Protein backbone atom coordinates (compact mmCIF):
# COMPACT_ATOMS: atom_id res chain seq x y z
CA UNK A 1 0.00 0.00 0.00
CA UNK A 2 1.57 3.19 -1.17
CA UNK A 3 2.50 5.78 1.44
CA UNK A 4 1.84 3.23 4.14
CA UNK A 5 4.23 0.32 3.64
CA UNK A 6 7.26 2.52 3.03
CA UNK A 7 6.71 4.07 6.43
CA UNK A 8 6.72 0.69 8.15
CA UNK A 9 9.95 -0.78 6.86
CA UNK A 10 11.75 -2.81 9.47
CA UNK A 11 15.15 -2.11 8.00
CA UNK A 12 14.75 1.63 8.38
CA UNK A 13 13.45 1.05 11.89
CA UNK A 14 16.69 -0.60 12.88
CA UNK A 15 18.67 2.31 11.46
CA UNK A 16 16.53 4.89 13.18
CA UNK A 17 16.76 2.97 16.45
CA UNK A 18 20.54 3.08 16.20
CA UNK A 19 20.45 6.81 15.48
CA UNK A 20 18.32 7.31 18.56
CA UNK A 21 20.67 5.22 20.68
CA UNK A 22 23.57 7.37 19.53
CA UNK A 23 21.84 10.69 19.95
CA UNK A 24 20.15 10.19 23.31
CA UNK A 25 22.45 11.32 26.08
CA UNK A 26 22.97 8.80 28.83
CA UNK A 27 22.81 11.38 31.58
CA UNK A 28 19.16 12.35 31.29
CA UNK A 29 15.63 11.12 30.81
CA UNK A 30 13.53 11.88 27.76
CA UNK A 31 9.85 11.80 28.71
CA UNK A 32 7.87 12.30 25.55
CA UNK A 33 4.13 12.63 25.60
CA UNK A 34 2.21 11.43 22.62
CA UNK A 35 -1.11 13.06 22.33
CA UNK A 36 -2.81 11.12 19.62
CA UNK A 37 -4.67 7.85 20.18
CA UNK A 38 -3.30 6.67 16.87
CA UNK A 39 0.25 7.12 18.16
CA UNK A 40 -0.49 5.10 21.30
CA UNK A 41 -1.81 2.36 19.10
CA UNK A 42 1.11 2.45 16.68
CA UNK A 43 3.68 2.36 19.48
CA UNK A 44 2.09 -0.68 21.00
CA UNK A 45 1.12 -2.50 17.86
CA UNK A 46 4.63 -2.30 16.39
CA UNK A 47 6.48 -2.55 19.67
CA UNK A 48 8.26 0.77 19.13
CA UNK A 49 9.04 1.10 22.83
CA UNK A 50 11.22 -2.01 22.56
CA UNK A 51 13.47 -0.22 20.10
CA UNK A 52 14.07 2.75 22.38
CA UNK A 53 16.91 3.07 24.89
CA UNK A 54 15.96 2.82 28.56
CA UNK A 55 15.94 6.56 29.13
CA UNK A 56 13.50 7.39 26.32
CA UNK A 57 9.92 6.85 27.45
CA UNK A 58 6.58 7.51 25.86
CA UNK A 59 3.86 8.90 28.06
CA UNK A 60 0.35 8.48 26.82
CA UNK A 61 -1.73 11.62 26.99
CA UNK A 62 -5.42 12.42 26.59
CA UNK A 63 -5.49 11.89 22.87
CA UNK A 64 -8.34 9.49 22.83
CA UNK A 65 -11.68 11.32 22.52
CA UNK A 66 -13.59 8.27 23.69
CA UNK A 67 -11.45 8.19 26.83
CA UNK A 68 -11.81 11.87 27.69
CA UNK A 69 -15.57 11.96 27.26
CA UNK A 70 -17.01 12.26 30.77
CA UNK A 71 -19.35 9.52 31.88
CA UNK A 72 -22.13 12.05 32.37
CA UNK A 73 -22.39 12.69 28.63
CA UNK A 74 -23.07 9.01 27.95
CA UNK A 75 -25.57 8.92 30.81
CA UNK A 76 -27.31 11.81 29.11
CA UNK A 77 -27.43 9.96 25.81
CA UNK A 78 -28.91 6.92 27.50
CA UNK A 79 -31.42 9.15 29.24
CA UNK A 80 -32.36 10.60 25.85
CA UNK A 81 -32.98 7.10 24.53
CA UNK A 82 -35.11 6.18 27.50
CA UNK A 83 -37.33 9.21 27.13
CA UNK A 84 -37.59 9.70 23.39
CA UNK A 85 -38.05 7.35 20.49
CA UNK A 86 -34.86 8.21 18.67
CA UNK A 87 -32.40 6.30 16.55
CA UNK A 88 -28.98 6.96 18.04
CA UNK A 89 -26.08 6.69 15.60
CA UNK A 90 -22.63 6.22 17.06
CA UNK A 91 -19.09 5.37 16.09
CA UNK A 92 -18.15 1.87 17.19
CA UNK A 93 -15.66 2.74 19.92
CA UNK A 94 -18.28 4.47 22.00
CA UNK A 95 -20.66 1.58 22.33
CA UNK A 96 -18.83 -0.28 25.08
CA UNK A 97 -17.74 2.64 27.26
CA UNK A 98 -19.05 2.08 30.78
CA UNK A 99 -21.46 4.73 31.98
CA UNK A 100 -23.07 5.07 35.41
CA UNK A 101 -24.81 2.14 37.06
CA UNK A 102 -22.91 -0.38 34.97
CA UNK A 103 -24.77 0.82 31.88
CA UNK A 104 -23.39 1.36 28.40
CA UNK A 105 -24.80 2.08 24.96
CA UNK A 106 -24.31 -1.55 24.03
CA UNK A 107 -26.29 -2.68 27.05
CA UNK A 108 -28.96 -0.10 26.26
CA UNK A 109 -29.19 -1.60 22.79
CA UNK A 110 -29.54 -5.10 24.22
CA UNK A 111 -32.38 -3.73 26.35
CA UNK A 112 -34.18 -2.51 23.24
CA UNK A 113 -32.90 0.98 22.42
CA UNK A 114 -32.40 1.66 18.73
CA UNK A 115 -28.68 2.32 18.58
CA UNK A 116 -26.85 1.88 15.29
CA UNK A 117 -23.18 1.76 14.72
CA UNK A 118 -22.02 3.95 11.86
CA UNK A 119 -18.72 4.40 10.18
CA UNK A 120 -19.41 7.89 8.86
CA UNK A 121 -21.76 10.85 9.36
CA UNK A 122 -22.91 10.06 5.83
CA UNK A 123 -24.36 6.83 7.17
CA UNK A 124 -26.31 8.77 9.81
CA UNK A 125 -27.71 11.06 7.13
CA UNK A 126 -28.77 8.05 5.11
CA UNK A 127 -30.56 6.60 8.12
CA UNK A 128 -32.36 9.94 8.48
CA UNK A 129 -33.48 9.87 4.88
CA UNK A 130 -34.58 6.25 5.11
CA UNK A 131 -36.59 6.84 8.29
CA UNK A 132 -38.34 10.18 7.77
CA UNK A 133 -40.85 9.66 10.57
CA UNK A 134 -38.22 8.96 13.22
CA UNK A 135 -35.80 11.26 14.94
CA UNK A 136 -32.15 10.47 14.31
CA UNK A 137 -29.44 11.64 16.70
CA UNK A 138 -25.77 11.41 15.82
CA UNK A 139 -23.44 11.11 18.84
CA UNK A 140 -20.55 13.25 17.71
CA UNK A 141 -17.19 12.87 19.42
CA UNK A 142 -13.66 13.55 18.35
CA UNK A 143 -10.93 16.12 17.99
CA UNK A 144 -10.42 18.36 15.01
CA UNK A 145 -9.93 15.44 12.64
CA UNK A 146 -13.47 14.22 13.12
CA UNK A 147 -15.20 17.58 13.59
CA UNK A 148 -15.22 18.72 9.94
CA UNK A 149 -17.17 15.63 8.83
CA UNK A 150 -19.84 16.52 11.38
CA UNK A 151 -19.94 20.08 10.04
CA UNK A 152 -20.41 18.75 6.52
CA UNK A 153 -23.26 16.52 7.66
CA UNK A 154 -25.07 19.39 9.35
CA UNK A 155 -24.72 21.63 6.33
CA UNK A 156 -25.82 18.84 4.07
CA UNK A 157 -28.86 18.19 6.24
CA UNK A 158 -29.73 21.85 6.01
CA UNK A 159 -29.21 21.89 2.25
CA UNK A 160 -31.44 18.87 1.76
CA UNK A 161 -34.01 20.13 4.23
CA UNK A 162 -33.76 16.99 6.34
CA UNK A 163 -36.08 17.52 9.27
CA UNK A 164 -35.31 14.57 11.51
CA UNK A 165 -31.54 14.74 11.96
CA UNK A 166 -29.62 16.27 14.85
CA UNK A 167 -26.20 16.03 16.44
CA UNK A 168 -25.30 15.51 20.10
CA UNK A 169 -22.08 17.45 19.98
CA UNK A 170 -19.07 16.47 22.08
CA UNK A 171 -16.29 17.69 19.84
CA UNK A 172 -13.19 18.84 21.70
CA UNK A 173 -10.15 20.92 20.83
CA UNK A 174 -6.54 19.86 20.93
CA UNK A 175 -4.79 23.14 21.76
CA UNK A 176 -7.03 23.66 24.78
CA UNK A 177 -6.23 20.17 26.03
CA UNK A 178 -2.55 20.77 25.53
CA UNK A 179 -2.75 24.03 27.45
CA UNK A 180 -4.61 22.37 30.24
CA UNK A 181 -1.99 19.64 30.51
CA UNK A 182 0.85 22.09 30.62
CA UNK A 183 -0.82 24.10 33.33
CA UNK A 184 -1.74 21.20 35.58
CA UNK A 185 -0.76 21.80 39.14
CA UNK A 186 0.77 19.05 41.09
CA UNK A 187 -2.13 17.23 42.58
CA UNK A 188 -1.98 14.80 45.42
CA UNK A 189 -4.81 12.81 43.88
CA UNK A 190 -3.71 12.80 40.29
CA UNK A 191 0.02 13.13 40.68
CA UNK A 192 2.32 15.19 38.58
CA UNK A 193 2.94 14.76 34.94
CA UNK A 194 6.55 15.28 33.97
CA UNK A 195 6.86 15.83 30.26
CA UNK A 196 9.90 17.02 28.33
CA UNK A 197 8.38 17.24 24.89
CA UNK A 198 5.40 16.35 22.76
CA UNK A 199 4.69 14.25 19.72
CA UNK A 200 1.99 16.29 18.04
CA UNK A 201 -1.11 14.59 16.66
CA UNK A 202 -0.97 13.63 13.00
CA UNK A 203 -4.38 14.23 11.55
CA UNK A 204 -5.62 16.87 13.91
CA UNK A 205 -2.62 18.82 12.68
CA UNK A 206 -3.46 18.17 9.05
CA UNK A 207 -6.65 20.10 9.74
CA UNK A 208 -5.47 22.85 12.10
CA UNK A 209 -1.96 23.21 10.68
CA UNK A 210 1.26 23.57 12.62
CA UNK A 211 0.69 27.21 13.49
CA UNK A 212 -1.43 26.75 16.64
CA UNK A 213 1.40 24.92 18.36
CA UNK A 214 3.74 27.90 18.28
CA UNK A 215 1.95 29.43 21.23
CA UNK A 216 2.90 26.44 23.35
CA UNK A 217 6.56 26.22 22.53
CA UNK A 218 6.87 29.96 23.06
CA UNK A 219 5.02 29.98 26.35
CA UNK A 220 6.04 26.70 27.94
CA UNK A 221 9.47 26.13 26.40
CA UNK A 222 8.88 22.53 25.50
CA UNK A 223 9.52 21.20 21.99
CA UNK A 224 6.74 19.81 19.84
CA UNK A 225 7.27 17.64 16.79
CA UNK A 226 4.19 16.94 14.70
CA UNK A 227 4.50 13.25 13.98
CA UNK A 228 3.04 11.12 11.23
CA UNK A 229 0.96 8.13 11.86
CA UNK A 230 3.23 5.30 10.95
CA UNK A 231 5.83 3.74 13.26
CA UNK A 232 8.76 5.17 11.29
CA UNK A 233 7.21 8.61 11.62
CA UNK A 234 6.99 8.10 15.37
CA UNK A 235 10.64 7.09 15.53
CA UNK A 236 11.86 9.92 13.35
CA UNK A 237 9.86 12.40 15.40
CA UNK A 238 11.32 10.94 18.57
CA UNK A 239 14.79 11.52 17.17
CA UNK A 240 13.89 15.10 16.33
CA UNK A 241 12.60 15.71 19.86
CA UNK A 242 15.74 14.23 21.39
CA UNK A 243 17.88 16.51 19.26
CA UNK A 244 15.86 19.55 20.30
CA UNK A 245 16.17 18.65 23.95
CA UNK A 246 19.89 18.06 23.64
CA UNK A 247 20.35 21.40 21.95
CA UNK A 248 18.10 23.26 24.35
CA UNK A 249 15.68 24.20 21.56
CA UNK A 250 11.91 24.36 21.92
CA UNK A 251 10.44 24.72 18.47
CA UNK A 252 7.52 23.42 16.52
CA UNK A 253 8.86 20.98 13.97
CA UNK A 254 6.80 19.14 11.41
CA UNK A 255 7.79 15.57 10.55
CA UNK A 256 4.50 14.86 8.86
CA UNK A 257 5.03 17.28 6.00
CA UNK A 258 3.30 15.02 3.53
CA UNK A 259 -0.03 15.84 5.16
CA UNK A 260 0.50 18.84 7.42
CA UNK A 261 1.15 22.40 6.36
CA UNK A 262 1.58 25.58 8.38
CA UNK A 263 -1.95 26.80 7.68
CA UNK A 264 -3.68 23.42 7.67
CA UNK A 265 -6.86 22.62 5.75
CA UNK A 266 -8.54 26.00 5.51
CA UNK A 267 -11.64 24.69 3.79
CA UNK A 268 -12.26 22.36 6.74
CA UNK A 269 -11.48 25.11 9.26
CA UNK A 270 -13.96 27.45 7.58
CA UNK A 271 -16.67 24.79 7.67
CA UNK A 272 -16.04 24.17 11.36
CA UNK A 273 -16.19 27.89 12.12
CA UNK A 274 -19.42 28.23 10.22
CA UNK A 275 -21.24 25.49 12.07
CA UNK A 276 -19.66 25.48 15.52
CA UNK A 277 -18.68 27.90 18.22
CA UNK A 278 -16.79 27.58 21.48
CA UNK A 279 -18.41 26.38 24.65
CA UNK A 280 -17.39 28.42 27.67
CA UNK A 281 -16.34 25.32 29.46
CA UNK A 282 -16.48 21.55 29.02
CA UNK A 283 -15.66 18.76 31.37
CA UNK A 284 -12.85 16.41 30.38
CA UNK A 285 -12.12 13.16 32.04
CA UNK A 286 -8.84 13.58 33.81
CA UNK A 287 -8.59 17.32 33.26
CA UNK A 288 -11.73 18.58 34.93
CA UNK A 289 -13.47 21.63 33.49
CA UNK A 290 -11.46 23.25 30.74
CA UNK A 291 -12.37 26.65 29.36
CA UNK A 292 -12.89 27.06 25.62
CA UNK A 293 -12.00 23.47 24.96
CA UNK A 294 -15.12 22.20 23.24
CA UNK A 295 -17.59 23.09 20.53
CA UNK A 296 -21.32 23.56 20.39
CA UNK A 297 -23.55 24.06 17.39
CA UNK A 298 -24.26 27.68 16.39
CA UNK A 299 -27.76 29.04 16.73
CA UNK A 300 -28.11 29.23 12.91
CA UNK A 301 -28.11 25.46 12.97
CA UNK A 302 -30.08 25.06 16.20
CA UNK A 303 -32.54 22.64 14.64
CA UNK A 304 -29.65 20.23 14.15
CA UNK A 305 -28.52 20.49 17.74
CA UNK A 306 -29.85 17.59 19.81
CA UNK A 307 -29.41 19.61 22.98
CA UNK A 308 -31.83 22.23 21.59
CA UNK A 309 -34.23 19.71 20.13
CA UNK A 310 -34.56 17.52 23.17
CA UNK A 311 -34.24 18.34 26.80
CA UNK A 312 -31.12 16.44 27.68
CA UNK A 313 -30.29 16.90 31.35
CA UNK A 314 -26.67 17.45 32.21
CA UNK A 315 -25.45 14.61 34.26
CA UNK A 316 -22.55 14.79 36.65
CA UNK A 317 -21.46 11.27 37.17
CA UNK A 318 -19.01 10.06 39.71
CA UNK A 319 -15.93 8.22 38.58
CA UNK A 320 -15.98 4.54 39.33
CA UNK A 321 -14.30 3.94 42.65
CA UNK A 322 -10.69 3.00 42.22
CA UNK A 323 -10.60 3.80 38.51
CA UNK A 324 -7.44 5.70 37.71
CA UNK A 325 -8.47 6.81 34.20
CA UNK A 326 -8.23 10.50 35.06
CA UNK A 327 -4.63 10.24 36.27
CA UNK A 328 -3.71 7.90 33.45
CA UNK A 329 -5.18 10.25 30.86
CA UNK A 330 -2.97 13.03 32.18
CA UNK A 331 0.06 10.81 31.93
CA UNK A 332 0.59 11.02 35.67
CA UNK A 333 0.06 7.35 36.31
CA UNK A 334 0.53 4.14 34.40
CA UNK A 335 -2.25 1.60 33.83
CA UNK A 336 -0.36 -0.76 36.08
CA UNK A 337 -0.67 1.74 38.93
CA UNK A 338 -4.42 1.26 38.94
CA UNK A 339 -5.63 -1.32 41.42
CA UNK A 340 -8.44 -2.34 39.12
CA UNK A 341 -6.16 -2.96 36.15
CA UNK A 342 -6.08 -6.61 35.21
CA UNK A 343 -8.00 -7.71 38.26
CA UNK A 344 -11.50 -6.35 37.89
CA UNK A 345 -10.88 -4.16 34.87
CA UNK A 346 -10.07 -5.99 31.67
CA UNK A 347 -11.11 -5.53 28.04
CA UNK A 348 -14.00 -7.95 28.49
CA UNK A 349 -15.16 -6.18 31.64
CA UNK A 350 -13.97 -2.59 31.34
CA UNK A 351 -14.46 -0.29 34.30
CA UNK A 352 -13.27 2.83 32.53
CA UNK A 353 -12.93 4.18 29.02
CA UNK A 354 -9.15 3.72 28.96
CA UNK A 355 -9.75 0.00 28.81
CA UNK A 356 -12.51 0.10 26.23
CA UNK A 357 -11.08 2.14 23.47
CA UNK A 358 -8.31 0.38 21.60
CA UNK A 359 -6.40 3.66 21.77
CA UNK A 360 -6.76 3.86 25.51
CA UNK A 361 -3.56 3.29 27.47
CA UNK A 362 -5.02 0.52 29.55
CA UNK A 363 -6.36 -1.44 26.63
CA UNK A 364 -3.07 -1.02 24.79
CA UNK A 365 -1.08 -2.11 27.84
CA UNK A 366 -3.28 -5.08 28.44
CA UNK A 367 -3.68 -6.25 24.89
CA UNK A 368 -0.23 -5.63 23.57
CA UNK A 369 2.25 -5.31 26.35
CA UNK A 370 1.53 -7.03 29.59
CA UNK A 371 4.35 -9.50 29.23
CA UNK A 372 6.80 -6.75 29.99
CA UNK A 373 8.18 -7.22 33.45
CA UNK A 374 8.62 -3.65 34.57
CA UNK A 375 8.33 -0.09 33.40
CA UNK A 376 9.68 3.06 34.96
CA UNK A 377 8.40 6.50 34.13
CA UNK A 378 9.24 9.57 36.16
CA UNK A 379 10.32 7.46 39.05
CA UNK A 380 7.03 5.60 39.23
CA UNK A 381 7.89 1.97 39.46
CA UNK A 382 5.40 -0.59 38.37
CA UNK A 383 5.13 -4.16 37.27
CA UNK A 384 3.29 -4.74 34.02
Amino acid sequence: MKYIDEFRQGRLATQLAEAIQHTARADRQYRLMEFCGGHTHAIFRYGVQDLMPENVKYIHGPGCPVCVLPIGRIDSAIHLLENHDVILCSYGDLLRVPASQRQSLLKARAAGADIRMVYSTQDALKISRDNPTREVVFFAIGFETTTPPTAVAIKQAQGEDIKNFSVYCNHVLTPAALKSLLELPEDHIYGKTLVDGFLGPSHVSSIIGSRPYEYFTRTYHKPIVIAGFEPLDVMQSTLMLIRQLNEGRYEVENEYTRAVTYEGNQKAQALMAEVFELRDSFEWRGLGNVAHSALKIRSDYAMFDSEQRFSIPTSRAAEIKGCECPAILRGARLPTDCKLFGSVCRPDNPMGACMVSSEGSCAAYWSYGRFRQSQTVSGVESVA
Partner: protein
Amino acid sequence: MCLAIPARIISIDSATDMATVSLADIEKQVSLALVSDVAIGDYVLVHVGYALNKISIEEAEKTLAMFAEAGLIGAQP
Protein backbone atom coordinates in the same frame (compact mmCIF):
# COMPACT_ATOMS: atom_id res chain seq x y z
CA MET B 1 -9.55 10.38 16.46
CA CYS B 2 -6.81 9.88 14.05
CA LEU B 3 -7.22 6.80 11.94
CA ALA B 4 -6.74 8.17 8.47
CA ILE B 5 -5.30 6.20 5.61
CA PRO B 6 -3.77 7.37 2.33
CA ALA B 7 -5.71 6.12 -0.69
CA ARG B 8 -5.62 6.91 -4.38
CA ILE B 9 -8.48 8.65 -6.17
CA ILE B 10 -9.59 6.59 -9.15
CA SER B 11 -12.76 8.43 -10.11
CA ILE B 12 -14.59 11.61 -9.21
CA ASP B 13 -18.29 12.45 -9.34
CA SER B 14 -18.49 16.25 -9.25
CA ALA B 15 -22.28 16.23 -9.05
CA THR B 16 -22.29 14.54 -5.66
CA ASP B 17 -18.82 15.74 -4.60
CA MET B 18 -17.84 12.12 -4.02
CA ALA B 19 -14.85 10.13 -5.18
CA THR B 20 -13.96 6.47 -5.44
CA VAL B 21 -10.64 5.75 -3.81
CA SER B 22 -8.55 2.64 -4.02
CA LEU B 23 -6.27 1.07 -1.45
CA ALA B 24 -4.57 -2.10 -2.65
CA ASP B 25 -7.53 -4.06 -4.06
CA ILE B 26 -10.21 -2.29 -2.03
CA GLU B 27 -12.39 0.49 -3.38
CA LYS B 28 -14.48 2.85 -1.33
CA GLN B 29 -16.66 5.91 -1.82
CA VAL B 30 -15.58 9.02 0.07
CA SER B 31 -16.83 12.57 0.28
CA LEU B 32 -14.71 15.36 -1.16
CA ALA B 33 -16.48 18.07 0.84
CA LEU B 34 -13.35 18.87 2.83
CA VAL B 35 -10.83 19.12 0.03
CA SER B 36 -10.43 21.13 -3.13
CA ASP B 37 -8.31 20.80 -6.25
CA VAL B 38 -8.06 17.06 -6.27
CA ALA B 39 -7.71 14.99 -9.40
CA ILE B 40 -7.70 11.37 -10.39
CA GLY B 41 -4.40 9.85 -9.37
CA ASP B 42 -3.98 12.07 -6.30
CA TYR B 43 -3.53 10.46 -2.90
CA VAL B 44 -5.78 11.65 -0.11
CA LEU B 45 -6.09 10.90 3.59
CA VAL B 46 -9.35 9.05 4.22
CA HIS B 47 -11.08 9.36 7.58
CA VAL B 48 -14.64 8.27 8.50
CA GLY B 49 -15.78 8.36 4.89
CA TYR B 50 -14.21 11.71 3.98
CA ALA B 51 -11.06 12.82 2.20
CA LEU B 52 -9.28 15.05 4.70
CA ASN B 53 -6.30 16.31 2.82
CA LYS B 54 -4.19 15.69 -0.23
CA ILE B 55 -0.89 13.88 0.38
CA SER B 56 2.08 15.69 -0.99
CA ILE B 57 4.07 13.15 -2.92
CA GLU B 58 7.11 15.37 -2.90
CA GLU B 59 7.05 15.65 0.87
CA ALA B 60 6.50 11.92 1.24
CA GLU B 61 9.67 11.24 -0.73
CA LYS B 62 11.58 13.81 1.33
CA THR B 63 10.43 12.21 4.56
CA LEU B 64 11.52 8.76 3.44
CA ALA B 65 14.88 10.18 2.49
CA MET B 66 15.10 11.76 5.92
CA PHE B 67 14.59 8.39 7.56
CA ALA B 68 17.35 6.85 5.52
CA GLU B 69 19.66 9.75 6.29
CA ALA B 70 19.02 9.57 9.99
CA GLY B 71 19.99 5.97 9.78
CA LEU B 72 23.30 6.84 8.21
CA ILE B 73 24.07 9.42 10.84
CA GLY B 74 23.33 6.85 13.47
CA ALA B 75 25.80 4.48 11.92
CA GLN B 76 28.68 6.89 12.34
CA PRO B 77 30.86 6.22 15.36
